[in-house]
């Protein structure tokens, strides 16, 4: 569906990365890859370095550190927040939502709205569209959109398809009401038929975790995982992305009356460099306008990937003059969503390592 928003702007983004870095080289012996295969995987799929949390670190730990840094640096007065949206697939608890944990840990005021959304790779787009919608309320002038995931804790040690690319991270995006009348265009679609293309089978109410769900089994391709672990059908995800995302972007640009060449930057979710290159080729986007190095440097951090691309590839000063940005996320659900947004006067694009 086509969406349209007005009266909202991104004020600033804080990316929070775990300091702990692991390298593919140090883990390659866990998988059944030859030296030649490992070299190719590094070059083509960006298997290299990724940031992961320690075993007891949760999303709220990363997010609280991020908010505290913003407050300490004088970039955000926590009392000005009217709504807190938390988008994650790896909540601290099944109950309550992680937004309430963060609200409590930060001592935020009671007169505000907390909202939790279970989304992954399209989570920044879904979260922003929700934030823009909330800003239609007169009582809501500032929304903090949190994207956070610690998916590394759900990936099996012997999953050669997923583990080498998965990274952990969080981001805090401050979205403000504005009198600026420029329009923001959006496009979101869902195909629930593919709900099991990316999933964790056990842990919810359908299959409760137990000793059996923790026992790994080896599949035909040598991946060892248990029902408690993330499973991704890479071929299904690849095919849906290549089929649906270019069509979505063309529709978004047409809806916004913007030519592809007028877009200053394409900040897309970062599955791997190969898929991004194929997407850029199919769309006709110059490679220099579409950053694709996140997986190689930090890992694929699900819904945090788009804000991570913005914080690690652009300076706030780049947005002193308005820039037309195309944002796109795609993955679990299956969901694919995009936004065409004028970004200007960004107060901060920070990276915090904790």
């Amino acid at each position, binding site marked *: 569906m086509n969406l349209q928003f007005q009266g909202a702007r991104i004020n600033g983004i804080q990316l929070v990365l775990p300091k702990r870095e692991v390298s593919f080289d140090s883990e390659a012996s866990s998988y059944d890859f030859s030296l030649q295969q490992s070299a190719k995987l590094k070059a083509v799929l960006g298997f290299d370095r990724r940031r992961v949390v320690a075993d007891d670190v949760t999303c709220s730990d990363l997010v609280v550190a991020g908010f505290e840094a913003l407050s300490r640096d004088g970039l955000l007065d926590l009392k000005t927040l009217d709504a807190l949206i938390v988008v994650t697939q790896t909540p601290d608890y099944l109950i309550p939502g992680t937004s309430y944990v963060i609200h409590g840990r930060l001592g935020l005021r009671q007169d505000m709205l907390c909202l939790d959304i279970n989304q992954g790779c399209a989570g920044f787009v879904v979260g922003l569209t929700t934030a823009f919608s909330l800003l239609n309320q007169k009582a809501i002038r500032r929304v903090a959109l949190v994207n956070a995931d610690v998916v590394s804790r759900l990936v099996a040690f012997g999953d050669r398809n997923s583990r080498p690319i998965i990274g952990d991270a969080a981001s805090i995006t401050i979205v403000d009401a504005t009198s600026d009348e420029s329009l923001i265009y959006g496009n979101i679609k869902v195909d629930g038929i593919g709900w099991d293309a990316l999933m964790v089978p056990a842990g919810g109410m359908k299959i409760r975790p137990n000793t059996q769900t923790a026992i790994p089994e080896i599949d*035909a391709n040598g991946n060892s995982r248990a029902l408690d672990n993330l499973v991704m059908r*890479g071929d299904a995800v690849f095919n849906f992305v290549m089929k649906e995302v270019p069509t979505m972007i063309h529709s978004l640009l047409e809806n916004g009356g913007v030519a592809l060449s007028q877009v200053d930057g394409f900040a897309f979710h970062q599955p791997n460099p*190969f898929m991004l290159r194929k997407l850029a*080729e*199919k769309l006709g986007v110059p490679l220099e306008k579409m950053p694709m190095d996140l997986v190689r440097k930090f890992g694929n951090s699900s819904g945090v990937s788009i804000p991570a691309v913005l914080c690690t590839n652009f300076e706030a000063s780049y947005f002193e003059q308005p820039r037309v940005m195309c944002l796109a996320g795609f993955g679990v659900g299956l969901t694919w969503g995009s936004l065409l947004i004028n970004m200007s006067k960004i107060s901060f694009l920070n990276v915090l390592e904790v």
Partner: protein
Amino acid sequence: MNSKFVEIINSVRPEIRFNTEQDTELFGVLDSLDIILIVEELERQFDISIEAEQIVPENFASLRTLEAFVKSRAQ
């Protein structure tokens, strides 16, 4: 079958030992990582461009269908 072509497939999954004499099923044998590596290598070694929408089961069903597809891209 072209030995260079089979060599490329073997470099990705050496344990299967594909050979030039025999058509072998690929779909269900290769996973998404294998397919991406094969596409990258075919593009490089045969100087062809494989479009994203061509990376589909029909073209990767077997050694023979993949070889026919590569030949069609090279023309």
